[in-house]
């Protein structure tokens, strides 16, 4: 077992974990932050995307130990002072989710997309940038609309 500490959603946390523990396991099992999901075992689906030091990462392929000292933001930490992030609002406004299982990862990826690419995102860019996030319910049509709206709203 090893000791790790990090900041998660603005709060300092620590834990004692098996060195093989993945970041997603640490978040879900140790911290009970279950909004981050595990949808696959090959880093393909993106249901597990969180932000580590401001960048989107797949927490299912990240060892918790390598995040020692890092700042992590999960879907639970995206709303500020009880107010939803514009990307969360956009997913609801556009019916950008059905079962909702991929949604936390989709939203975290979308926020990262805006951080990197700016607020004016065309459909082609959004679709290409969503390559690492799979949705089986929506057919992506409304997710693409949601990301475009969420991006534009953030800059407004």
């Amino acid at each position, binding site marked *: 077992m090893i000791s790790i500490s990090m900041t998660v959603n603005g709060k300092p946390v620590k834990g004692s974990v098996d060195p093989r523990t993945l970041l997603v396991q640490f978040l879900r099992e140790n911290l009970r932050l*279950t909004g981050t999901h595990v949808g*696959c075992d090959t880093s393909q689906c993106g249901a597990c995307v969180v932000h580590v030091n401001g960048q989107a990462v797949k927490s299912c392929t990240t060892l918790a130990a390598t995040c020692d000292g890092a700042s992590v933001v999960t879907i639970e930490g995206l709303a500020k002072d009880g107010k939803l992030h514009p990307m969360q609002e956009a997913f609801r406004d556009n*019916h950008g989710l059905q079962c*909702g*299982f991929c949604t936390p990862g989709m939203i975290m990826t979308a926020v990262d997309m805006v951080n990197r690419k700016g607020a004016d995102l065309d*459909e082609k860019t959004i679709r290409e940038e969503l*390559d690492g996030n799979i949705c089986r319910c929506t057919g992506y049509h409304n997710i693409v609309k949601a990301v475009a709206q969420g991006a534009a709203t953030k800059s407004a």
Partner: protein
Amino acid sequence: MRPMKFGIGQAVKRVEDARLITGHGQYTGDVEAPGVATASFLRSPHAHARFAFVDLETARAMPGVLAVLTAADVVGLGGVPCLAPMANADGTTTPLPDCPLLCADEVRHVGDAVAMVIAEDELAARDAVEAIGVDWEPLDLVVDVPAAMKGEAAQVWPDVPGNLAFDSGIGKKEATDAVFAAAPRVVALRLVNNRLIANYMEPRGAIGEYDAGEDRYTLTVSSQGVHGLQDTLATKIMKLPAEKIRVVTKDVGGGFGVKTFMYREYPLVLAAAKMLGRPVRWLSDRSEHFLADAHGRDNVTVAEMALDEKGRFLGLRIDLIGGLGAYPSQYGPYIHYLGATMATGPYDIGAFHARVRGVYTHTTPVDAYRGAGRPEAAYVLERLVDACAREMKTTPDAIRALNFIKPAQMPYRTPTKRTYDVGEFEGAMRQALARADAAGFSARAAQAKAQGKLRGFGFASYIECTAWGEGEEGSLTLNEDGSFTVLVGTQSNGQGHETAYAQVVAQYLDVPVDSVRVVQGDTDRVATGNGTGGSRSIPVGSAMVARASDKLSIQLKELASDRLEAAVADLEIADGGVRIAGTDRAISFADIARLPKATPEARRAVESYTPPEATYPNGTHVCELEVDPETGQVTIERYTICDDFGVTLNPLLLAGQVHGGVVQGVGQALSERTVYSEDGQLLSASLMDYGVPRAADVGSFHFETRNVPSTTNPLGLKGAGEAGSIGSCPAVMNALVDALHRNYGIAHIDMPATPLAIFKAIRAAAR
């Protein structure tokens, strides 16, 4: 029906979303179970083998390991039964094996379960699974359906020769053969409906708990309905009174039919929880999903159409051979037959016969997947109709218009003994083609060709059956605080039932949707139910909720009548309460709930609804695509849908269902390829190997409705959950064949038409 702000027809945003966009959903893996232990399974690496354990003790002695269970530990439990066996056409039946909870000495597909490890945590459980010693003796096997039917093929079951589980028929064979013998023209096609893997984003999972004090089990499971699972556990597997087993389903991350079924892991986590005296949880990973959850589709069909010289369809003859996998899954055998009951589609075809056979192979079992037989049938028919148009040198729209069942023929009795109540098939087709700018296609094709791309235009007109069979009983209650609670036995898997049912209540009781709570997924709270499947929840569930709302309205008026000193007949439901019609004298529902006579019984209405016949949604999907002849890559340029869903309950939710279904169909048509090696290994067993569509693989859609209300459903609704996956495969493939035929004379290509398959077809045609 009077439009209400939150009522039927309104684009109400979902009440579910608040929890799901903030990470507060409660999927099975998110549910807290204090002291929970983790289960992991040892699964067969062989498609067919005899085996014996040579070392269980090493695993049992490993740190954190609580138990290692084998078949010997669960001898008192029944296997997982097939609930939909098929008889042979001659009335005989073939022996129907159960799927054992754990295999005793023989495995029949890669992924078949042989041992269950329960440990303190996932890592310990997985380590122990790897430490189990097994002596495997591989046996002869067969994975290919046609090969399995040959005499020399390995047999999956000793008492099922030729691996033939059933050989059934539907329609009139002799009469149909006579029509074919005399027909001026016959067009035939052999088509593959490729085996698919559901790949809902939330893999299956289950938590078993046992309360020794009450001698009672609780199963929390990602499912499509708790009552069916409770019944199978109670009556077939655990042989206990149903009240001894509570089944709970919370948020579900997609199901598409495949989470309907009983699976071996569910009774096993319950049995393990009792043995260990603590909760036991199993969460499938994606690799396990590929091997252990039922697959879908999987048939090879020879279809023939007899035509007269004008292109009128005289007869349809189908020979369908469906794969079952190694075990007959819950509804597996019936699904192939179900599709055949829709084989004549929207056309008036005088003579019809289908032979439907089911065949075992050493592969993962096959069962219902979104559409369950109807996508397969629509694909075969619409490909065949396009082939007929080519043969008759007419256009796809002309041959369809000639052969569609006309509105004046409704109600129409099909040769498969279904009764279509309404449908305006040509109307939907014309509207879809106009919206898709069919007239402008030639110009777009010429432009594409100038850029080296092959553009194709194709469409499919489908009809399907939804919401048949069992009904729903449920209730609507006015709570003491003036809010309402619906209890319903359907099960949302992401479709938005909480919002949809609240809209029905809002329609009848003129209240905002957020004052209505929908309770589902708990056998302790909802007495009966039939879950989600066959696009039944909205047509059947809403009809029940509407009846309950109507009934409760009367009860609430009766309660209000004393207080308002008015006759019930003079009262109306308005603005969150009851008022004297034409006045401002009113009492709110919250105040009614506090009246002395407002007993729990007076505030509660129980109702049921059982559909007298299926509803028949229909429509036309139009696909326009481009093929890059250098790479075989397909790009869908335009996709247009005009559907008839009877009545639209919520246009946001409806469009969402259609979009998602279409992309699943696009996946089947172009990328989803389930590949077994000759030795029975599933080569496409990860999201890196199996082509679930990504965002960049598809484009946006134009969707509109041309609704003709159902006459059999009280609200006029037709089911909409599966239609997208039914219209899409043939629309995409007809467009692709159109592109290939125009440029290379290629008249046939099978699904999935991957870039490699298209590239090879083009090269072969160019030679």
